[in-house]
């Protein structure tokens, strides 16, 4: 008998997950309401959940099963992309939802949880398969994992998977510690570290665009690419997360995960297969090839900024130092711009400019590949005053799509050139709305596919780079101020101007 199931293979059906119980720690929080509950509802309405399935919320607050169900129903009603909510679908999901009140740090809550899981396994036929989702502050990750291990809940007789949110550690040392603590209870293939950017359709499309098309790969290298710009701009400030943000800053909050993931997908070599290890192997290679920061270079290759009061989207906003939860003279950066080099054959000498900031004029995320100019221009410079180099821009959000900029002749008797663009918009090419990132990620971890999750070595390689910069910046290195509603500090512009380049207008 062969190892494989002969009835499987070249699948033409959507595989449905095995029976399992999803346990959400921090079930009363924002993430559960905004992302998890709507994603569960979406999957239920597409009939992608198994019949033998249950959700157990775990949190400090005392609450009955019914109240928890009502709580989630409210969240689905508010945040689901599918509206109106279909009562029948919700009802079927709601009767599978339970709640346990307990403290994350003491063992009695875990015992009650264990009893409920055993009972549900028996009554619901969930087969001992468990998915623990930690929607808690990161400081609880290792405690919860440890307690789960002690209570024997990671050995339910079926599979056990643990999902953790960002931030994963706050530097290389703490990330390593956290990995070590999780490893005491679980193995790498049981741990799913979320970077929700990877669940976005447009981010996955970077791979589709690069590796499903033959015409771009030949020019995707140092011979043709002048430089790459990766931008993640937010118009929001730190909102209610001031005290968290104080500890993090833009570098830890955005660069270590989202921007470096975008960089990996843009710069990686073709993986041998689209599976978890092949893809992540290539991403790790990129991260390891990024030239680290020496203390001397930190000043010339990186810029940090902090917003001051200003106007965004027609509203006056306060400066970072006046945000709730922020210390009066905080050195935390709300903006970071980096110039990176990838030391390999494909990219040697090609700068990758990364920038991210809060309180920018608008929300926009894109990866732009700027190509080298034509080696010799036949047309007189006077006829072509505004000619710009070719740019391929992959827009992640909003206005999701891909735009190629090139020169065309302006109609008329003289040769005049003008930059035009060839646009592909998701919204007008595909009529369907893409699923939320969490829907895709939820389904993947139910099926045990970890391609879109970050592996230990990946997290640590990203932290190695970011930590080298954090250390170079050191204490007392104050961020440059920029007015809210502008594109960052003047020094960030200078970073590119020194190379005779400029940031793209987003």
């Amino acid at each position: 008998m062969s190892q494989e199931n002969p009835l499987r293979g070249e699948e033409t059906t959507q595989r449905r997950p095995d029976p399992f119980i999803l346990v959400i720690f921090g079930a009363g929080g924002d993430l559960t309401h905004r992302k998890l509950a709507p994603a569960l509802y979406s999957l239920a309405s597409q009939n992608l959940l198994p019949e033998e399935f249950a959700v157990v919320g775990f949190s400090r607050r005392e609450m009955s099963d019914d109240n928890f169900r009502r709580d989630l129903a409210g969240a689905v009603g508010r945040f689901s992309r599918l509206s109106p909510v279909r009562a029948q679908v919700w009802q079927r999901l709601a009767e599978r939802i339970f709640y346990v009140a307990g403290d994350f740090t003491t063992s009695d809550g875990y015992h009650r949880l264990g009893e409920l899981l055993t009972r549900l396994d028996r009554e619901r036929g969930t087969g001992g398969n468990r998915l623990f989702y930690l929607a808690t502050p990161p400081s609880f990750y290792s405690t919860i994992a440890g307690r789960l291990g002690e209570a024997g809940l990671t050995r339910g007789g079926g599979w056990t998977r643990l999902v953790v949110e960002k931030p994963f550690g706050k530097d290389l040392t703490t990330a390593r510690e956290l990995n070590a603590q999780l490893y005491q209870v679980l193995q790498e293939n049981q741990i799913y570290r979320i970077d929700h950017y990877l669940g976005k359709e447009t981010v996955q499309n970077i791979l589709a665009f690069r590796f499903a098309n033959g015409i771009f790969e030949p020019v995707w290298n140092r011979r043709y690419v002048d430089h790459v710009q990766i931008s993640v701009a937010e118009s929001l400030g730190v909102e209610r997360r001031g005290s968290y943000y104080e500890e993090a800053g833009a570098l830890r909050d955005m660069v270590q995960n989202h921007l470096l993931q975008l960089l990996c997908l843009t710069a990686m070599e073709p993986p041998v297969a689209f599976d978890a290890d092949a893809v992540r192997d290539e991403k790790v290679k990129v991260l390891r090839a990024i030239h680290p920061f020496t203390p001397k270079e930190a000043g010339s290759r990186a810029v940090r900024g902090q917003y001051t009061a200003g106007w965004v989207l027609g509203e006056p906003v306060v400066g970072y130092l006046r945000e709730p939860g922020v210390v009066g003279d905080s050195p935390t950066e709300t903006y970071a711009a980096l110039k990176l080099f990838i030391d390999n054959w494909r990219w040697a000498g090609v700068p990758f400019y990364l920038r991210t900031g809060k309180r920018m004029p608008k929300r926009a995320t894109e990866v732009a590949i700027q190509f080298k100019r034509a080696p010799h221009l036949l047309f007189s410079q006077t006829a072509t005053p505004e000619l710009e180099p070719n740019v391929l821009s992959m827009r992640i959000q909003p206005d999701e799509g891909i735009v190629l900029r090139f020169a065309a002749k302006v109609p008329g008797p003289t040769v005049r050139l003008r930059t035009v663009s060839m646009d592909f918009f998701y919204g007008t090419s595909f009529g369907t709305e893409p699923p939320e990132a969490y829907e895709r990620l939820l389904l993947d971890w139910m099926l045990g596919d970890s391609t879109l999750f970050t592996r230990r070595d990946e997290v640590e390689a990203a932290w190695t780079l970011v930590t080298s910069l954090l250390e170079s910046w050191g204490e007392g290195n104050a961020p440059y101020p920029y007015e809210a509603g502008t594109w960052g500090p003047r020094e960030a512009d200078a970073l590119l101007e020194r190379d005779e380049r400029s940031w793209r207008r987003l």
Partner: protein
Amino acid sequence: MKGGGPGEATPPQAVFWEGQGVTVEAVERLLAQLASRAEEAGEDRPIVRSRVLNLLVPVRGTTPADRAAQAAARLALQHPSRTIILVGDPQAAGGMDARVLVHTEGRGAEERRVIFCEQLVLTVRGEAARHPASIVLPLLVPELPAVVWWPEEPPWDQTFDELLRACDRLVVDTDRFREVAGLGRLASVGCALGDLAWERLAPWREELARSFDPPAARECLTQLSRVVIRMGTLPRAWLLAGWLADRLGWEVLAQEPAQGGWTVRWRRPGGELSMELATDRSKEETVELSAPQATFRVQGKAGEGTAFARYPGEPGIERRLRWEETTPPMCLDRVLARGSDRSLRNALTHAARLVGEANDRKEKGGAGAK
């Protein structure tokens, strides 16, 4: 836009143009000017056309035409297309009527008006109905793939061959086939295939595959002695039999008609097994595979069912199942979302072999009776 699946959202439609006794050239010209004409008609926003395929739907009569038009409209957002619904009536007096509908929706920051579906209903009467390619070919959007979808069993005649040559892909619904002989004809078609009945079988295939995911259960696949397949239609039962035969390496040994269906003997690796193929609309649909000391059964009706498994080491486990209802637009959506379907092709090849044997037997039976 809210909602997702086909059938949940249909962009607003408008009859754009209607004409009787028209020529192909007139229709072609009209379609070419569709966007600019809409702008002239007072639409102040820029108009974009979105289309990824040509969908050609040959039908007989106005009711099937309306049904096909609705189904195609439901697919508009998933598969923006130029849809040509071809109503052929060779018996009637000549002439062609045309109706053009567009389905549009505002999109993006500038609220561009996007045409997601341009639907053309052509009623062709008289001799021209026997030469449909001459009408369809000029109207297909160049560069885009063309799919021909026959909601009913195709006529397998010269018009069928003609339209098939004009298109890249054939989509049928074998559940609507009058008899299993159609499977044999379908198997001999060279282009890429899609089948709505095959999509309805998808949850069955998934659950059967899943029954054999545990290694101990998989061992039983080489010892199967008896298989029962009872489905709502006979073609679907044969198709599922073809799929099992393909995946598990079975060859037909013998077969004969039985009450409500057929019994078949198969040679499987290491032995033989018997199969009962039946159609029964009243009872639950069932697929049961038995080996010594093992039974695997998937059964269900109207979207609900159970999967049962018993094998050495597993005294008996039953799982409840729930399937999505599958309307023709939903099945068509899945067919179109996928490229050529090799597993369908393979299943069909094996099912067709069964048909071949069955025909031989009928002929022999006929000769014997004489």
